[in-house]
């Protein structure tokens, strides 16, 4: 494969990364939120290429849920269970809200139907369904104008036959059908039902989108389209159209995958990714592999799909600062968003984190996006005046305080993915990207005592990079609920074999290509616990060492284990994978004119003359002592005082505290 195009659609920009002749070209253009495929196709026209493969990180499914623009969806449940999703876990998100809000449902109550049929917990039949009732329910859904039908029956993970009746009944109908036994055959009814309903809700929207995009691509003579899934792997159009719920975290997963690929090439296997944008920040910890979790929560609804474990906080450069009535400085949760944006963008009046960086002299002179976007420094200075009273009238002290509190908020997010998961962040390299990540990275690394920061050469297009490099994947998880003992080994192995066959058939290898590689894992827990940990099984499919690996993992995550306690297998997992291309993101180096400018920047109350250096002019081996600010098209890197940056062979900036040897 020699010409591959990675595309990541963001809220503001659509990023293109074209892999051709062993090199990458970057292209950016404004997104077209009304129909994201337009920007994609226009970008391809602008690039003037016909890629053999287009891999696309997409927010279509997520946005459909958040904005409630999904399909009109009907739901069939077991009798007595129609309100499972409305009840959820019976909790309120904000404990101290006297008037908790009711979330907008995905399925209107008049489109929720109950099937008179009952399974016992072990999957045996108590009351068999009447086929005519099944047909009648399908008909009622259609008559009510439903585009999609979700079916989630109690205990169906143990016996899919009731749900499968709907397949026959709906054959020939236009309904997008989503069965829980197909989408998410795992126990815990609320999660399974939510996953199945989400799949139905985004199904027609996603199908239409990929169809439209595929047609446009075909007209341009390109190769096939693939969509990045929440696990960081990509899937062909057929799988995505059937299982769109697997793409809910497409973009952030691709970003982490891209960052991890870059860091790994540079020799760093243990990293924490830090992607700070205007309105939100994504962090993830990779310990030699992409971190996975079995679910993702979107707008309060859980989707049981393997997902890169990205923790998102609603804080970024646009977070608004203010002093509360008790005299504490608060940064966020309110955000100036993209509109009006930070005061320095020219129309807002609230003082944001980005404005604080402007007041401190770290942003501004050259504007953003290579000067295409000017920053209004006067406006940022005017906005800070509202905070100055708490800082003795000193605007620089106020701005520094805002950056410090923002850093503390980011620290808290990083602690969630590191300390709360049993990892010590000091052992990891911080990989900073996104528009604002590299500007905040040194301060964040200092609070967490991390010794090293890596800033990739293209910190604005890592999601597109992750898309280009993505493996093709198909995954399956199925609850078995068996004791992990010799007596049930055969049953466990059977379930693994079935799951392996399912995922293998979902990835049809191109002619002559190697068949997919299948890997297996078990979700294990001590009997009586309610949370599982996923343990990989060796390639030989034997269970030797699995029990010990579980104890070790449990100790690492929760600081205790019990080698004598009984263990059970909750679910089996299989993943099929066809490796993607190992595209090397090393840029072409051109020694620049080294036109270094100097300007005043404030650090912790001290004014220091600081060099501003165009990153494009740096070549491997260059060393820059902090303080310095490295500018590039879509990001700004701060080398803080006491830090030193070095350009490695692949063009990454490796920032370390001066005096600390690179290990």
């Amino acid at each position, binding site marked *: 494969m020699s010409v591959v195009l990675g595309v990541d659609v963001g809220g503001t920009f659509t990023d293109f990364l074209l892999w051709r002749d062993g090199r990458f070209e970057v292209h950016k253009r404004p997104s077209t939120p009304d129909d994201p495929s337009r920007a994609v196709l226009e970008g391809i026209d602008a690039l003037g290429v016909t890629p053999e493969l287009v891999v696309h990180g997409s927010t279509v499914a997520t946005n459909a849920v958040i904005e409630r623009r999904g399909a009109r969806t009907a739901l069939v449940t077991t009798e007595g269970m129609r309100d499972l999703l409305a*009840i959820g876990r019976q*909790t309120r998100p904000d404990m101290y809200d006297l008037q908790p809000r009711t979330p907008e449902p995905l399925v209107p109550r008049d489109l929720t139907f109950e099937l008179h049929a009952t399974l016992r917990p072990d999957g045996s039949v108590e009351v068999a369904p009447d086929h005519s009732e099944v047909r009648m329910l399908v008909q009622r859904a259609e008559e009510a104008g439903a585009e999609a039908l979700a079916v989630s029956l109690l205990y169906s993970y143990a016996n899919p036959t009731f749900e499968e009746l709907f397949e026959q009944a709906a054959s020939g109908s236009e309904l997008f059908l989503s069965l829980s036994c197909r989408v998410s055959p795992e*126990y815990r009814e609320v999660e399974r039902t939510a996953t199945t309903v989400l799949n139905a809700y985004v199904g027609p929207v996603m199908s239409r989108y990929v169809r439209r995009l595929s047609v446009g691509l075909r007209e341009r003579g390109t190769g096939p389209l693939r969509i990045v899934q929440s696990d960081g792997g990509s899937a062909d159009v057929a799988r995505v159209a059937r299982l769109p719920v697997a793409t809910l975290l497409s973009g952030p997963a691709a970003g982490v995958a891209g960052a991890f690929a870059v860091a790994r090439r540079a020799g760093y296997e243990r990293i924490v990714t830090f992607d700070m944008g205007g309105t939100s920040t994504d962090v993830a910890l990779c310990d030699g592999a992409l971190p996975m979790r079995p679910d993702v929560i979107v707008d309060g609804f859980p989707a049981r799909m393997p997902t890169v474990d990205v923790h998102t906080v609603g804080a970024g450069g646009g977070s608004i600062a203010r002093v509360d009535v*008790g005299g504490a400085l608060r940064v966020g949760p309110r955000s100036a968003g993209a509109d009006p944006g930070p005061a320095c963008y020219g129309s807002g009046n609230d003082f944001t984190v980005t404005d604080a960086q402007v007041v401190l002299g770290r942003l501004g002179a050259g504007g953003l996006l290579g000067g295409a976007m000017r920053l209004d420094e006067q406006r940022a200075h005017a906005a800070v005046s509202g905070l100055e009273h708490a800082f003795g009238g000193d605007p620089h002290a106020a701005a520094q*305080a805002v950056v410090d509190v923002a850093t503390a908020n980011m620290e808290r997010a990083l602690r969630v993915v590191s300390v709360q998961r049993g990892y010590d962040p000091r052992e990891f390299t911080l990989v900073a990207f996104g528009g604002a990540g590299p500007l905040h990275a040194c301060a964040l690394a200092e609070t967490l005592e991390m010794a090293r920061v890596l800033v990739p050469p293209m910190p604005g297009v890592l999601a597109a990079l992750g898309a280009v490099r993505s493996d093709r994947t198909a995954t399956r998880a199925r609850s078995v609920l068996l004791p992990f003992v010799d007596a049930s080994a055969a049953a466990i192995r059977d379930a693994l074999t079935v799951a392996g066959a399912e995922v293998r058939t979902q990835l049809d290898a191109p002619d002559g290509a190697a068949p997919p590689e299948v890997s297996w894992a078990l979700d294990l827990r001590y009997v009586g*616990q309610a949370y599982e940990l996923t343990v990989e099984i060796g390639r030989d499919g034997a269970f030797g060492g699995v029990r010990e690996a579980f104890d070790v993992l449990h100790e690492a995550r929760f600081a205790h284990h019990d080698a004598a306690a009984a263990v059970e297998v909750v679910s089996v997992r299989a993943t099929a994978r066809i490796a993607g291309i190992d595209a090397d993101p090393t840029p072409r180096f051109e020694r620049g004119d080294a036109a270094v400018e100097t300007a005043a920047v404030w650090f912790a109350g001290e004014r220091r003359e600081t060099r501003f250096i165009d990153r494009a002019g740096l070549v491997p081996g260059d060393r820059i002592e902090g303080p310095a600010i490295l500018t590039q098209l879509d990001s700004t890197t701060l080398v803080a005082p006491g830090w030193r940056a070095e350009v490695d062979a692949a063009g990454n900036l490796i920032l370390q505290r001066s005096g600390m040897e690179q290990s």
Partner: protein
Amino acid sequence: MTDAARTTLSAADLAITDAALSSVAEEMGEALGRTAFSPNITERRDYSCAVFDAGGRMVAQAAHLPVHLGSMPTAVRAVMRLGPFEPGDVCALNDPFLGGTHLPDITTVAPVFTGGPEPLGFVVTRAHHADIGGMAPGSMPVARELLQEGLVIPPITLVRGGKVEEAAMALIVRNSRAPEERRGDMRAQLAATRLGGRRLEALARRFGADALRGRFAALLDHGERVVRAMLDDVPDGRYRFEDRLEVGDGITIRLAVEIAGDEIHFDFTGTDPETEETSLNAVAAVTHSACYYIVRCLAGQDTPNNEGCYRPVRFTLPERSLVAAGPPRAVSAGNVETSQRITDVALGALAQALPDRIPAASSGTMNNITIGGYDRARERPYAYYETIAGGAGGGPQRAGRSAVHTHMTNTMNTPIEALPLAYPFTVERYEIRAGSGGGGLHPGGDGVVREYLFRDAATVTLITERRRFAPWGLQGGAPGAVGRNTLVRADGTVERLGARAQIEVRAGDRLRVETPGGGGWGRPEEE
């Protein structure tokens, strides 16, 4: 520390310290929730974690359960009398009259040292254990005195110098109907405690131990300022309200909320005496929690979770009353039911001062159900506890939410599909109880119907309220529907149960719990 150390803490350092300490409490909670064994802790997350200063004042609490807000400080102060401590000590208690709430809530308190002889502070966990003995599985029986409710653990040192006092642990574990589960849950609490201790030590290294003490003090002052600013905006006055619990013809909680400047006084003078008939007696700590919760709600998003917030709060609690019970009274329902009525009464009073902020009464009960006995299929004794949501009251801004836990609890449900994997019963119906919310411009939320089918004989205890006295509406809104507890025997016989019941069920019997809706707010608009 000096006053200077307090006042020099900058606006930024306040926020940074609050974030750092809250992280400690959250990380403890995460560890506890993931490692415990009983569904009550792992699935329902019925626990809280907090950090205290050396003076026994709470400086940070993870946002877990309001009912633990005011009662954890009492526990720490009770434990402090056991000192002096050495590093590695962990104390435990559940005595409701010495810092506990009700017996199933076991609290661990561990001093944290940073070199000197005096602790820097304490880390605390509190978790609701599914069974701690007593006359019925689940330890929330229909009882008349405390000893019927289970094992009473006065403040004791459970871990000394890092070594578990195995005799004490064995005594606790042996007094539960599910000893192995108890051991696992206790171990999880101790692990979370250790983790919290390590995290607090790390903060002491980062900020300096003395400086951290100064920061504790500054955080408490900040909390106090936030709440005083809020109270200052509430119109001064004395606002009265009363409501009843369902014992006999009703036993009454009477409250006058007095707002004067930036202080608030909860005066319960006139409240009925403690009851000998039931366990609806709240210990003072529970009453404090309920009132603190209301203050915290009104003070809004910027309020830190620390005890400084409650300096402007004063109480008058008549001794040996429903809101300040003493030994030997039974108290298990005081924590879960009377606490809800106390919030109702406080809201009813404050609605007169703040008509545009206070909603109508929510369901006003946690609908506690405990099921236990001997599981013949699994050959083991068991005890299971859960609470069922109801409707939230309609409010000035919007209609009440249906099927949600309100006020003093926010515990999750257990997945229906998880139950038959561990217990000999299933849930056959779980739906919103349509039409149970009170009508109004902004109607109350609907309650829930949850129906259990027993596959084996079991002892079932129900502790519920609002089965006779409905959740009230406000500003012309209608009351919510009262709840109903119904037992349908395998042979079809239907028995209406009272608000509190202990019953023996057999295989094939069904229990239907219909929870109350919330009260409506405002007169419905005329068409």
